[in-house]
């Protein structure tokens, strides 16, 4: 979901670009400290790889097809900072040479897909993997984290569009999130399948062990976390908090209406359900989101069960 130019206004552009620049420089600094010359060609190849992987279309329902973003895939394979850099560079090339995603919207696209997608997704992966440190748990973690990265990126995208005044939050949020919950299933399955195949053919490439995350990395995550939280505050929370405002408005209007009514009879059942009605599509989407997340989690665990069982059979 690359945002084109013209959808975001100046304040949103400035905010997203600043946040992305901060997140990107953190990732760059982390990488520079850690990278050895041997790994530089790998980064270049990884960027080309993500590019090509995004070109593959997977059939979804009917005649539509979806494609991979790959943020969690790269995060699991090369680490979160590398993922931020690689996805950002891919977005850069896509913007300049395919006009896929606007130039000024680059900040927003980088923030949504490279930063939120990679880091949030990777954190979810680590969290689940630490809780269930088996092979099955790993696949579950990867699948669910990939789904989350797609959905979260779309939530921030909706928030940015609403913040810019281009699309109403009440339209943007349900529309974006519902579609991406479906697309995310594809991302989850593909990422898990790819990691599983690599595990079976060249397991030594997947050397990252969640248990060995050193304390110093938690500090990195903290800084990333601050960047993402600021993004949340700017782009998501202002719109979520409108729900109670809506209700307060209803109360105020009812009270006002009651005062103007001549009859003393309280017309409580005849509340104008127009106003709660505006609130509820958003609420409904939130509830659907929670339910959807649980369903996806269950699906991911079933999926990972089959994958893990298969590789056990192959090992014997």
């Amino acid at each position, binding site marked *: 979901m690359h945002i084109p130019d013209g959808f975001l206004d100046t304040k949103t552009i400035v905010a997203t670009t600043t946040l992305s620049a901060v997140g990107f420089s953190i990732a760059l600094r982390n990488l520079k400290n850690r990278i050895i*010359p041997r790994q530089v060609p790998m980064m270049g*190849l990884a960027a080309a790889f993500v590019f090509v992987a995004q070109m593959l279309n997977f059939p979804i329902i009917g005649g539509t097809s979806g494609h991979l973003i790959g943020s969690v895939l790269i995060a699991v394979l090369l680490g979160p900072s590398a993922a931020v850099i690689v996805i950002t560079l891919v977005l850069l*090339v896509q913007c300049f040479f395919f006009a896929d995603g*606007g130039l000024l919207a680059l900040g927003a696209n980088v923030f949504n897909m490279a930063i939120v997608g990679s880091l949030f997704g990777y954190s979810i992966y680590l969290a689940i993997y630490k809780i269930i440190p088996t092979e099955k748990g790993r696949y579950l973690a990867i699948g669910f984290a990939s789904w989350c990265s797609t959905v979260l990126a779309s939530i921030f995208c909706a928030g940015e569009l609403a913040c810019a005044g281009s699309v109403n939050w009440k339209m943007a949020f349900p529309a974006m999130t519902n579609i991406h919950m479906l697309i995310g299933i594809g991302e989850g399955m593909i990422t898990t399948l790819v990691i599983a195949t690599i595990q079976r053919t060249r397991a030594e*490439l997947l050397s990252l062990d969640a248990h060995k995350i050193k304390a110093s990395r938690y500090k990195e995550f903290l800084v990333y976390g601050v960047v993402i939280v600021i993004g949340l505050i700017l782009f998501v929370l202002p719109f979520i908090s409108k729900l109670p405002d809506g209700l307060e408005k209803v109360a105020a209007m009812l009270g006002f209406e009651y005062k103007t009514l001549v009859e003393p009879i309280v017309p409580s059942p005849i509340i104008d359900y127009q106003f709660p009605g505006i609130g509820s599509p958003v609420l409904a989407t939130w509830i659907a989101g929670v339910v959807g997340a649980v369903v996806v989690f269950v699906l991911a665990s079933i999926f990972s069960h089959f994958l893990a069982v298969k590789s056990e059979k192959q090992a014997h």
Partner: protein
Amino acid sequence: MRHDFIDRYSRIDSPIHRRPTWIKVVLAISNVITVVAVPISYTLFFGIIGSLLLLIAQMSKIPKIFLLKRIILLEPFIMMIAMLSLFQVNGGIIFLSIVTKSTLCLFTMILLSNTTPFSELLDFLKRLRFPHLLITILALMYRYLFVLIDEKERMHRARESRSFKKNKAHVWISKSAIIAQLFVRSTERAERIYSAMCARGWK
């Protein structure tokens, strides 16, 4: 696979192509910034920008069908998101504003990418003192993108010619396998590239 699909017409000769890179980049970026910043009410401004872009397109000798195809390819995405904007108070104006600005910026970027070779763009970034690591990664990415695309095509053809089942599950499994194999081959290739670069004096 044509090994130039990103900047296919960036090396032809025309008055536009001959101009130095920095002018094209600066003009493109400032064009995008102004188009986004100016309110839609200044219709004359947008008309002038549109005509200027068309003039540049004409002078650049890029085949018009190519330009048209690129714009048509991306217009649906703009339309789909823009349509969501109709459902609010000033919906119509916002919709018009979004579509006009998006299309103009889209056109600008397409013109820029097809009048500037990628290597010149990297050179420009180097002069701007972009981090050396990133420029190396970008250069490698560009260099090996076409190699990987060819490999993907070969693997895809091999799979297609060996499989009978065309159901969705198999398509997913086979495409995921291709991606996985691509990654594995990328790591091996990266090792060889590193050795080759070291052998030629890269640090």
